[in-house]
């Protein structure tokens, strides 16, 4: 090789090397800035997750099967000492999306007969206590066999109601998944 070109060739190689190193540094700086921002977001998200994890669940992440719903109702009836003969009907429906939200709801209509208010309250408390997004939104009481005194005194063993209620389960179901 002609020695005349040694220095210019070395200069060219050095320039190319410097350019590559500069590009490497630029990429490394971008990665660092991105990682720093990601770390800050991770810290924020983790703090939020830990804080929210202590709260009761307002919506379930899974849809209960009809068998699970019926099992839960039976369990709550046993807890509230409601005889199985008082349960007139159980009608679970398919989950439906609530408007344009990322939530679905499953409505289960229950009908009872000859149930006292005290047992009804015990049943409702038990059936919704699992913190899995279950609510009793609607209750219809009808046909009290006694007057105002019976209503005011919930412990009256002779007090009976025809009850229709709707057990609602909220399910988080993002549309993007």
């Amino acid at each position, binding site marked *: 090789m002609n*020695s*005349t070109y*040694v*220095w*210019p060739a*070395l*200069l060219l190689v*050095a320039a190319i*090397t*410097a350019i*590559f*190193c*500069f590009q*490497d*540094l630029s990429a*490394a700086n971008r*990665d*660092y800035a991105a*990682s720093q921002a*990601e*770390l800050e*977001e*991770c*810290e924020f*998200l*983790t703090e939020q*997750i830990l*804080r*929210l*994890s*202590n*709260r*009761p*669940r*307002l*919506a379930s*992440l899974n849809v209960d099967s009809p068998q699970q719903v019926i099992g839960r109702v039976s369990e709550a009836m046993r807890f509230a000492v409601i005889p199985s003969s008082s349960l007139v009907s159980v009608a679970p429906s398919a989950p439906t999306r609530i408007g344009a*939200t990322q*939530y679905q709801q499953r409505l289960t209509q229950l009908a009872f007969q000859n149930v006292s*208010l005290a047992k009804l309250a015990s049943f*409702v*408390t038990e059936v919704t206590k699992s913190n899995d997004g279950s*609510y*009793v*939104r*609607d*209750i*219809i*009481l*009808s*046909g009290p066999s*006694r*007057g105002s005194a019976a*209503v*005011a005194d*919930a412990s009256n063993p002779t007090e009976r109601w025809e009850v229709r*209620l709707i057990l609602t389960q*909220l399910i*988080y179901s*993002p549309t993007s998944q």
Partner: protein
Amino acid sequence: MARPKQATLLIERHEHWHLITSETELTLCAVDCPASQVVTEAAAQLKPKKEGCALAILLNATSVLHSSFPRSDTGGTKARAALEFRLEADLPLSAEEFVAAFQLDSKADGQVAAIATEKKKTLELISLLRDQGIELLGIFPRSLLVTQALLDQKKIPASTALLLERPNSSETFVICKQLVRSWRLENGIPEAERGAAVVLKQLDLQLPLVVAGRPPELEATNRKPSMQYLDVDLEQLEIDSARSLIENNKVAWFDLLDAASIEPGPLSSNSNWLAQLSGTAACCLLVIAAALFWRAQETERLTNELRRSQQEIFTQAYPDKRVPTAVLARLRSEHAKVTASRSASNGELPLPAPALPIIQNLLEALPSDLPFSVQELRVENGRVYLDIEVEEHSEAGAITAALQSKGIAFSPPTTELAGERVRALLRGEASLQLPEASAP
């Protein structure tokens, strides 16, 4: 490198350059031709014959300048820079314009003999020969090779005044103890003889005069008894002397190639500033590149530490789960799930109004001092429908007022007579009670 059997010589003679190979002698271009032409012609002759591509250059006396001075002028030092600085005072060239070779007396108070030639031309010649792949074995003044050979062959004494007679010129050497004190170019033997006498007088020396060569003046009839005559073929002697030095690895008195090799590289001879600029810029760029590389590595290390911190954060939140590759994406997904299932703060969660607390409130609010009977109680997503029977119309209003005092907003009741009793329909709406847990 293996030497050729007989070294090739590129000789600058009176009018032309000559190329002497082991087989032939070729006449090349004129001595005033550009160096590139000389080298091109020499290379054209050498390469096809595969002569080993190595040669020595023999310079004519017209291309070489000579001077001598006491070593005391430079403080007795052998440093080349000091010697060149001193030599510059004797030459019509600046120190930057010549390359020089020196012959030093062994004694510090002795003499220094110096020869010099034009630097630009010499370096260009060297560069061009190297570019052609031709190795240079030495650059010798022709006449000094002859002088050294005559001394080595003991044909002349170690101290003498030597007159070289060539067809077109004469040269006068004054040699003291094998050190060239004077070297002059003259026109013919008579002038050379007079010149030698002048020099010897200047130097205050009494030395024998020896005439070497084969001109007509050396015929026996013209010889002077005071002078010694040597009948030698000077051109052949210089060729033999050069080959002897090269092939036997002897040291020449003066080799300008050694001096030229000390000078900056071939590029410098043509565009020294460009080489310096390129070299400096290349070094700067390499230093910058190294700094950038180090910085990039350091930044990458810090980035990896940040990523490890992300993984540690994930482990803190989910100690039982395997750390995913994309920590942030996983945390975003988990956060979306937790927020959606445990927080109503995003406003999208359509929380239903629990019916049981509303019924409890309503029952507690019903007045106990009024006789009434409940026919039907409907609580549907916070809305309350109460169908009751009372004794008088006014009692429905009293019951409504009692319920409103407990925070249930009722509209005015609708009443109608039903037999002996009054049937009243109350419509209201309870405020939503979110089942939020206590804040952490």
